[in-house]
C-alpha cells in the first residue's frame, strides 16, 4: 500500500467512526403523535366536564387515554423488526415524563378528594408540570421548538392565576392547541423528514 492509499484507509476509518457514532445516537423513534394524542385527550376531558359537569370526567378520560396509549405503544413495539437500543438521553427524557405523569396522577385526585381543588389551581399545576417536562426535554436534546413550547406552558401557568374562570379555560385551550396539537404535528413532520433522509442515506 502506498502512503496516500494508507492515508485514505485511515481517513475512511475516521469517517466510519463518526458515521457509526451518529447512527447510534440518532433517534428514529416517533413521539410527535403522543403530543397530539394527549392534546385530544385533554380536549375530550374539558368538553366532557363542560357539557355534563361530571366531576370524574378528567380522571376517567385520563385513565382511559393511558390504557389506549399503552396498547398503542405495545403494538408499535411488536411490529418493529428490531428494537432501538436505549441511550442515556432517552432514559433521562423517559424518566422526566413518567415522573411528571406520576406527580399529576397523585396530586390532582388528592386535591379533588380534599376539596381544595379549583379550576385555576388545576390549570396552573398542569401547565407548570408540562412546562417542566417540555423545558427539561427540550434542553436535553437541544430542541428550540420544545423549549418554546415550555415557555407557552409557563405563560399559561402565570395567566391561569389571574382572570375569570372562562378566561382561564381559554388560556388552557390555547396552550393545549399550541403545545400539543401544533407542536405534535410539527414534531411528526420533522420525524418524517428525518426518516426520509435516513432512507436516502441507506440507498
Amino acid at each position: 500500500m502506498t502512503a496516500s492509499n494508507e492515508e485514505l484507509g485511515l481517513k475512511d476509518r475516521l469517517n466510519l467512526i463518526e458515521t457509526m457514532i451518529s447512527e447510534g445516537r440518532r433517534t428514529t423513534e416517533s413521539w410527535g403523535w403522543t403530543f397530539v394524542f394527549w392534546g385530544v385527550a385533554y380536549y375530550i376531558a374539558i368538553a366532557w366536564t363542560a357539557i355534563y359537569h361530571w366531576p370524574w370526567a378528567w380522571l376517567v378520560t385520563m385513565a382511559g387515554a393511558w390504557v389506549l396509549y399503552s396498547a398503542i405503544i405495545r403494538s408499535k413495539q411488536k411490529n418493529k423488526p428490531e428494537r432501538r437500543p436505549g441511550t442515556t438521553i432517552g432514559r433521562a427524557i423517559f424518566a422526566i415524563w413518567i415522573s411528571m405523569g406520576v406527580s399529576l396522577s397523585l396530586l390532582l385526585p388528592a386535591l379533588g378528594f380534599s376539596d381544595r381543588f379549583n379550576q385555576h389551581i388545576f390549570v396552573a399545576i398542569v401547565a407548570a408540570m408540562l412546562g417542566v417536562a417540555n423545558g427539561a426535554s427540550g434542553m436535553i436534546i437541544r430542541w428550540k421548538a420544545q423549549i418554546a413550547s415550555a415557555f407557552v406552558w409557563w405563560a399559561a401557568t402565570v395567566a391561569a392565576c389571574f382572570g375569570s374562570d372562562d378566561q382561564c379555560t381559554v388560556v388552557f385551550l390555547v396552550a393545549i392547541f399550541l403545545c400539543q396539537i401544533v407542536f405534535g404535528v410539527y414534531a411528526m413532520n420533522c420525524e418524517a423528514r428525518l426518516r426520509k433522509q435516513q432512507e436516502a442515506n441507506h440507498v
Partner: protein
Amino acid sequence: MSELPELNPVIHGKLRLALLSLLVGVEEAEFTWLRSKTGSTDGNLGAQIAKLEEAGYVSVEKKFVQRKPQTLYRMTEAGRAALSEYIQALKKLLGGAIGA
C-alpha cells in the same frame, strides 16, 4: 522524529470498528439492531463480536423477554478506553491530513 503510534489490531478491522463506534453511543444494543446498522451477515457479525468479547471490549447478556431469546451487547470500560486510544492514534497518524 517522534515514533508513530501503532493501531490496535483488534479494533482496526472495519466491522469491529463499526461495532464499537455504534456501541459507544448507546447503553446496550440487540444483535438485530447491530446487524441492520452494519449490514453484515449473522455469521460474520457473530464472529467479530466474539473477537471483541474475547478482548474484553464488549460484554454480552443473554435473556428471555416474553419467552423470546434476546442477546444484548454493551461496551465495557476497557472497550471505551481502547476505542479512545485508537482514535487518538488515528488522528496522530493522519496529522494535518484530517483538516484537508
